[in-house]
């Protein structure tokens, strides 16, 4: 997992929030410059690629996403919710994040059952195709992030809900089974 991925950033936001009391701005301030995840890489004039800290606005965006996921309380009080605390427990981060994303999608009228049937229906179920087909009440970027998290969370234990193919296509177990069957038939 890339240390600058959304997955890693959320992990760092929760780590920081577990030691924090205050609003979004204060939490962002405490993260800025002290994080391995909130950094970007830029080639300087001397040609050397160097690591720079992300600005506060991009940190605040990720904190707000954690609030929308129900892992942090609110803009004014960026402390961990029950679910956020649960995510901090040993071995639970991936599963809690997965459940939080799943619930977030459900609240935005795209429950997994709809995503699953769209994946099974579309020939090439990449993010844009899924977005156009499902028309969720969230931006395409946010939708992309959610699908990414669902494919990453629990991947090591085979507990991830979506399986990404070349990081662009999303598949379900059912779709993979059907594709295998079709291949076997054609052989």
């Amino acid at each position: 997992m890339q240390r600058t991925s959304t997955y890693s950033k959320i992990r760092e936001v929760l780590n920081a929030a577990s030691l924090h009391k205050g609003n979004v701005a204060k939490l962002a301030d405490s993260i800025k410059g002290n994080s391995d995840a909130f950094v970007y890489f830029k080639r300087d004039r001397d040609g050397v690629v160097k690591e720079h800290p992300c600005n506060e606005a991009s940190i605040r965006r990720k904190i707000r996403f954690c609030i929308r996921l129900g892992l942090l309380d609110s803009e004014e009080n960026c402390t961990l919710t029950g679910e956020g605390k649960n995510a901090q427990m040993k071995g639970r981060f991936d599963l809690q994040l997965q459940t939080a994303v799943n619930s977030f999608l459900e609240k935005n009228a795209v429950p997994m059952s709809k995503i699953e049937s769209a994946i099974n229906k579309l020939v090439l179920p990449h993010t844009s195709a899924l977005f156009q087909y499902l028309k969720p009440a969230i931006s395409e970027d946010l939708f992309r992030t959610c699908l990414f998290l669902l494919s990453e969370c629990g991947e090591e234990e085979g507990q991830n809900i979506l399986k990404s193919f070349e990081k662009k296509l999303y598949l379900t177990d059912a779709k993979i089974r059907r594709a295998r069957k079709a291949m076997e038939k054609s052989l």
Partner: protein
Amino acid sequence: MNKLDISVPILGPEDANDDDNLSNYFVLFGDFQDLNKKSRFAVVGAKGTGKSAIKKHLSTTRKSSKLPVIEFDESLGFSLSALKTQSPAEIKNKMKGYLKTIILQYIVASSDLTKGQKNKVEKLLGDTPLYQRLLQGATIKAGIIDYALSGLFPKNKRGQLARLLDPGVNGLIMDLLGDKDLWVFIDDIDTIFTSDDNNASLKFVEGLIYAVSDLSVRELKKKVWIVLLLRSEIYEELTRLATEMDKETAYFWEVAWDDESLKKCLSERVRWVIGAEERLPDWKYWAVLFDTKNKASTVDLQSYLLERLMNGPRDLILLTELARRVAYAGKAQRIAIRDLEESEYEYGKAKLRQINSNFQRIYPDIDKVIDRLFRRKKQVYSREELETEINKDLLTNPTARQDFSHLSWVRMSTPFLFVDILYRAGIVGYFAPSEHRYIYVLQRSNPDKTLLKSTRYKIHSALSAYLELEAVQTKKKSTAKTKKK
């Protein structure tokens, strides 16, 4: 009043199909009258809610009045692969053709057609292979199936199908029926029309519903009323996956039972067994079977027993039968409440197994999940507490997730969705303040949409003994205070 002999089963078989005496004690309930008036064509309910009893009662009543009725069974079934399509639209057309074939065969075989009617049949279908089969009459049921498989479903026989879909055939059917109407019952769809592929079965049921709706409501103007009896778990899958299904749901009866109908269900059976002519209040018949002293204690026992029913009449028969065996083994004359209590563990175990078998298609191993989640825990939760419990002990618990890693329905669930699944499976109910009681899927097929986080949920009492749930705390303190006042 006569006494009951409790050495033998009293309330009849659990399965209505095996019950030849059903019409003697059938209880009208729910939307039955709407079904009878042809305002419903699909009856949806879990196993044991009385679907087959509804079919059997209507069918027996019609047969005894010499009114036309067709009951689909395995002899009219086929493998879904024979349809050569999985498109609901194509399934709809092919099934319309097939149903019309069966209807025509039934009418031609069972009535004495006039010469004019025979001429009409010949004029419309005389040059088709179907006509020859129709002439063979009712004895050749297999011939009709053979015709459907070879003459109606293959892609190169579209002409045959088109002939049957012609509106003229609708007119012919209505004309042949004269002033009578024909009822067709299709129960146990998945054992009549078989397939190994769940997805194919689901698409078939979807297509079949569209076909039945078109034929019964629009094309045959209710002269032929085709009734589908659907298991609720299939319906649940359909509503999730079939986009056009909402247009048909006005014709669906989602079976639900109220306490009064259930009480009547038992009292009618007892009344019939003891041969009582007179119609006494329900509790008096209950007191013949159960060891109670007066009306108040009978009402208490009724509440106790009804609180433990998840699916309706079949549970009533099952629990009473288990308690009867205990009572008889103890040489009692009637069933006491302690006999019911003693039967509860076995009953709860049977119920959880039944839930698992009912929901095996969509929520496999739900019994193991429930056992893991609730054993030796509380029986009553607030919605928030219940969702937290589900989140912590199942969805984000690494060991539980590992143990249930093969269950995609668990992996894809959320706490909110899981509560909904628990409700639909009959495992939990919610407290309705206006009614001062817990409502389960048996009483209301769809839960109230305005449920709050503080709404109380209760695990069904049918499972409390088997899952060793912590007993609900009664408000003894407040009662004591009231007494002091």
